């Protein structure tokens, strides 16, 4: 059936009368709130409040399970029981699996079944659940894209754009999915920069959980120091690496109440993914470090690296063990640091070094995989590019903190 022009317009009129609502649109409170949360003047203080809430929730939730129950369970029940029933006290196997037979807590024992399990389940698991729960709520409520809009101007200074906040925040949970999330960025330059910067400068949730346990009053300082490094080295990389940093248009969804079922589903997937990866690496890390210690390799390496560790970074040579463990699990390495006799400033420097020194093996594998997306040339670029960056960062940014302590006269 073919309609004449007038008939078509009449039909359009008829449909429009039924479906189009006319009148003055009156902004709702939700519209107004959506608007003020993306304007810098009002949005930044709100973002500070949200991040404060994030941090306070993280600390309270993780502390409730770790200090309230897991420390008690592992130190008062699990460790004494294992020390009593495990055969061959003082032997190699005992040392590797249970650790120091005279230890009175799981941080000091350093066996795979004592410190290894305590770190993975007692400390890291509550921290990871707290982190992902809050992150999922922020994501599903529609606040995360607004944070991206807010930080867009700042990230443009280092050749990235606001959406880079997503891998950055994911990285505070685990660097592995964060490196994968850099795929959302437009250019090769942006992807490489973001992947390398977050692998070096952003501590994962597991590491944060342990840091809160051993240096609670210095975590803020460590984070500020690392984030400052992120932006300074980001600025330098942006100048050095050729390539484009184009503008993007970001779709900001309306605010909505997160749906319980979706939050639970996302939380379960993320925690399960983390759990299946973390535990084997923590246990493997403890076993490898214990074997290196028992064979004398760790002592030899500590002596070889002593001039660099003590002279340049101002930390004891014994930190070589945690630095090796950091290649497998950074949380484990930080836990190990707490058992070494050193000043609080050396401990803070060591924690910073563990963060900067090398991404954990899972993140490193992910970096290489991302490079592979662009062929073998990409693999080589990611491999040598990230190694060169992290070598420069460790010596410059790691050495600088030692210089700060010298200037402050606390060394």
């Amino acid at each position, binding site marked *: 059936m073919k309609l004449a022009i007038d008939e078509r*317009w009449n039909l*359009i*009129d008829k449909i*429009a*009368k*039924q479906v*189009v*609502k*006319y*009148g*003055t649109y*009156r*902004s*709702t*409170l939700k*519209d*107004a*709130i959506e*608007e*003020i*949360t993306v304007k810098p003047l*009002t949005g930044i*203080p*709100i973002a*500070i*409040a*949200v991040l*404060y*809430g994030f*941090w*306070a*929730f993280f*600390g*309270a*939730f993780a*502390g*409730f399970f770790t*200090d*309230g*129950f897991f420390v*008690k369970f592992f130190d008062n029940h699990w460790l004494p029981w294992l020390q009593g029933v495990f055969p061959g006290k003082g032997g190699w196997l005992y040392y590797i699996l249970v650790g120091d037979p005279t230890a009175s807590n799981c941080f000091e024992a350093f066996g795979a079944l004592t410190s290894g399990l305590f770190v993975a389940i007692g400390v890291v698991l509550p921290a990871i659940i707290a982190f992902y729960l809050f992150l999922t709520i922020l994501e599903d409520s529609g606040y995360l894209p607004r944070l991206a809009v807010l930080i867009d101007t700042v990230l443009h200074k280092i050749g990235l754009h606001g959406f880079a906040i997503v891998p950055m925040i994911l990285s505070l949970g685990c660097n592995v999915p964060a490196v994968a999330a850099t795929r959302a960025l437009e250019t090769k330059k942006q992807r490489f920069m973001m992947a390398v910067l977050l692998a070096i400068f952003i501590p994962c949730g597991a590491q944060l959980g342990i840091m809160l346990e051993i240096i*609670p009053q210095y975590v*803020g300082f460590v984070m500020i120091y690392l984030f400052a490094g992120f932006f300074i080295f980001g600025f330098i990389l942006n100048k050095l690496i050729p390539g484009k940093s184009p503008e993007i248009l970001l779709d900001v969804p309306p605010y909505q109440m997160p749906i319980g079922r979706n939050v639970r589903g996302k939380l379960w997937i993320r925690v399960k993914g983390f759990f299946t990866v973390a535990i084997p690496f923590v246990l493997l890390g403890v076993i490898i470090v214990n074997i290196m210690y028992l064979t004398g390799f760790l002592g030899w390496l500590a002596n070889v690296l002593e001039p660099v560790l003590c002279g340049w970074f101002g930390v004891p040579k014994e930190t070589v063990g945690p630095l090796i463990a950091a290649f497998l699990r950074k949380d484990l390495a930080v836990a190990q640091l707490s058992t070494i006799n050193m000043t609080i400033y050396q401990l803070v420097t060591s924690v910073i070094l563990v963060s900067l020194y090398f991404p954990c093996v899972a993140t490193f594998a992910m970096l290489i995989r991302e490079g592979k997306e662009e062929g073998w040339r990409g693999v080589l670029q990611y491999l040598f590019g990230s190694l060169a960056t992290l070598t420069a960062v460790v010596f410059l940014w790691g050495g600088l903190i030692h210089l700060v302590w010298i200037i402050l006269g606390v060394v």
Partner: protein
Amino acid sequence: MNKETKFIIGRVYFTVFGLIVLGIGIIEILLGLTGRSFEYGIIEISGEFLLWRGVILFSAGAFYLSGVKNFSDIRQYAKIVMASVMVWIIAGMQIFGMILESIPGGEEGGWFNTLEGFLATYSPPYIPSLFLLPFSLVVFYYIKLIEEPRGEDKNKRGNSSVNRG
């Protein structure tokens, strides 16, 4: 009482409240910067993230004061709502922390807290945001008042004509 009078009362209320919040924010920032703490009766200004709490309360106070100008405009009132949300975040996290702290037993105690220990967790002193919390709830009354539909704004349906240009 007509709507206009209620708005005038609201404007005065949130101006006074905003000044108090702003003042507490300034005190917390100063104490946070100097590393000191303050305790008087049942009020305590100390603890972790004091400086950040100060920055948040200072901003909330500024939002209240900025929002009272042209108070009945929804865009202005949104600032007051967000200022209250900022107070709720600090107070809410404090309450959440107290609840979680009250459940497990101490380091040397059993798995769960004793009744005395449980109740002691909730005893004063409290941080200022906990006192500000109930006063910030007035925001809900004005949300209801501002969102009430006005006669002239009622949407009309069907009085349309399509431009055939």
